[in-house]
């Protein structure tokens, strides 16, 4: 049985930890004091880079590397904390904001010190009414105690933190969408480059970090890089030649929901398997695991053949999926995958920002196709296809065989792949929302094709037994490692 390792969540359930005094009793702000007393800003940036901390928001990009892209000579520079937690299946940031907001403020202070930032905006989801209330109270307290404002603790450091409410748009969780929204416009993502690190909010260099990423900083400073790097596995990434070490350090706040007995947030070292995680979360509710979504609803689904895939950044990328935000949704044998896909596609059709044509039109189109299949009106056809082989007359030619084709499944794959192609990893949209749509659409359909076919054939939702519903890995290219062109492998 895997043990929880609580670091970010260690004091979460302490009564009144949201107040300054109690937070102070549990080493609160001592890590920030250590940072300003013992280290230069460059040392901190170096420590974060060495710690191998990867962004916990979804993309999994190295935090230290992101910081290194920020030009030193352009001021002011801004920090945007992404607390717009909207990915279905993710709910770890909400607990930090509601129960331990001072930890986030301490993380922000360390980041601001390292990067020479004076203004931070916390973009908090509009629906987080309680979270915003607690956060605003904590910010106010920190100002009163002299940990925010001008000349903090007599060090000459100035940091201001403002919370900024969103208004219910999923796309504002995308970093450039967040920046547009923060500037008081529609949350429509920008073209990149320029990346926010060079030109972000108010056209100034901007660091955008997730709540969980920032909450890791006090512990990296407090306990040292060595302590941090011993948690989690390091792999040799064989996509590169020679293989590049790829660290998955630290803990992750895994949010597990769906068909488990004790859904919730579990803080564990990176690199455990789905089976282990389900065990930690009180076991499966039901007889058998049918599917696991590993990183929020945008991530490609894992079948019961892939339950031993490690849930970390590298392993999931190699399994043609992603860790994303760490929102794990478990489905048992009673679930119908067509129905689940319909639910997710309704979400994306609703949340497309409408900026790029392939996404604006493609997403509702995909939803309509899945709706049609689920309603029992899925299109199929029996056609005679020229299938070459040894024909009846013993000569090479058209065998005249008939074949049943599922028009809607081909159409689904074609439309989804035209929003974003999941095989080549190229998208026809400005932001990665495109890939977040086509990834689930194509992976569900390819991996659970028998269930889709049965539903179309029978004209009603058919839930097949797990073994029959799933295509085995050796028969389907949906499982294979993502195509990475050699010339891009070094980028």
């Amino acid at each position: 049985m895997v043990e929880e390792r609580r670091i970010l969540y260690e004091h979460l359930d302490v009564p009144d930890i949201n107040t300054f005094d109690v937070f102070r009793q549990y080493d609160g702000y001592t890590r920030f004091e250590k940072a300003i007393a013992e280290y230069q800003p460059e040392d901190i940036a170096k420590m974060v880079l060495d710690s191998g901390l990867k962004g916990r928001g979804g993309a999994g990009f190295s935090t230290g590397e992101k910081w290194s892209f920020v030009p030193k000579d352009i001021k002011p520079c801004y920090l945007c904390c992404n607390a717009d937690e909207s990915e279905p299946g993710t709910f770890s940031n909400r607990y930090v904001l509601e129960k331990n907001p001072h930890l986030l403020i301490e993380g922000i202070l360390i980041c601001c010190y390292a990067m020479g930032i004076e203004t931070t905006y916390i973009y908090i989801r509009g629906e987080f009414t309680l979270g915003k209330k607690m956060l605003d109270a904590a910010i106010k307290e920190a100002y009163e105690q002299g940990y925010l404002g001008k000349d903090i603790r007599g060090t000459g450091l100035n940091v201001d933190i403002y919370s900024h409410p969103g208004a219910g748009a999923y796309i504002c969780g995308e970093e450039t969408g967040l920046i547009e929204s923060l500037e008081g416009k529609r949350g429509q993502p920008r073209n990149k480059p320029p990346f926010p690190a060079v030109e972000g909010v108010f056209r100034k260099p901007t660091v955008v970090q997730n709540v969980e990423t920032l909450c890791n900083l006090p512990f990296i400073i407090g306990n040292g890089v060595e302590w941090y790097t011993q948690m989690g596995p390091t792999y040799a990434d064989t996509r590169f030649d020679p293989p590049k070490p790829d660290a998955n350090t630290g803990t992750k706040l895994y949010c597990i929901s769906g068909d488990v007995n004790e859904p919730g947030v579990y803080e564990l070292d990176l690199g455990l398997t789905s089976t282990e995680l389900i065990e930690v979360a009180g076991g499966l509710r039901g007889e058998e695991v049918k599917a696991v979504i590993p990183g929020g609803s945008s991530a490609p689904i894992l079948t019961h053949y892939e339950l031993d895939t490690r849930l970390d950044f590298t392993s999931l990328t190699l399994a043609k999926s992603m860790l994303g935000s760490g929102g794990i949704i478990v489905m048992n044998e009673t679930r119908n995958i067509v129905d689940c896909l319909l639910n997710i596609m309704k979400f994306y059709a609703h949340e497309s920002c409408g900026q790029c044509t392939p996404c604006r039109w493609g997403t509702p189109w995909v939803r309509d196709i899945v709706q049609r299949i689920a309603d029992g009106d899925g299109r199929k056809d029996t056609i005679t296809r020229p299938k070459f082989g040894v024909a009846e007359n013993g000569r090479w030619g058209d065998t005249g065989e008939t074949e049943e084709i599922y028009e809607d499944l081909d159409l689904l794959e074609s439309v989804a792949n035209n929003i974003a192609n999941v095989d080549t990893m190229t998208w026809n949209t400005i932001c990665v929302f495109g890939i977040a749509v086509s990834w689930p659409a194509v992976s569900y359909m390819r991996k659970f094709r028998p269930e889709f076919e049965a539903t179309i054939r029978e004209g009603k939702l058919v839930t097949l037994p797990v073994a029959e519903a799933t295509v085995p890995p050796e028969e389907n290219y949906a499982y294979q490692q993502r195509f990475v062109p050699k010339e891009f492998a070094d980028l």
Partner: protein
Amino acid sequence: MSDELIQIETPFAFNEENQREFDELIGRYPIKEAAMLPTLHLAQNQTGYITPAVMKYVAEQLEVSVMKVKDVVTFYPMFFEEPVGDYVIRVCHTLPCALRDCKVVLEHLKEKLGTDIASETNLAKGTTADGKFTLMKVECLASCDVAPVIMVNGDLHKNLTPEKVDELLAKLAS
């Protein structure tokens, strides 16, 4: 939007408390336009929904065109352009809640309130005749561990069953 149309509406201005909060807000950003979302939230809290008069007022305060305010209001689902009930009931219906039978909760609410589900373009459809409740479906509320969840104005209600819904409605109606 012509000026005559706006004149029909009752003019809007922040009350004293909101004006103070707005003055504080505006100082946080290097450009005034950036205060758009918090300002609209303030205005909506005061009036219940965003009328053309509100948009005109916000545009004047932030020194942008009315069209720009309208642009933002229509983009974000949390801003209403029509009157809503005193209690806005948001029912989460995304996958984790769907796996935990949010449909039962939704159907029960529909039956109890005797109303349909509001759509973004037709809020009246989901509002009860007495104007007390508005029922709407929303996407993930980031509380999947305690699914199914609903949000009534700012408050989250967890692990719902039809019985719990009855209790809640009785409490709200009194």
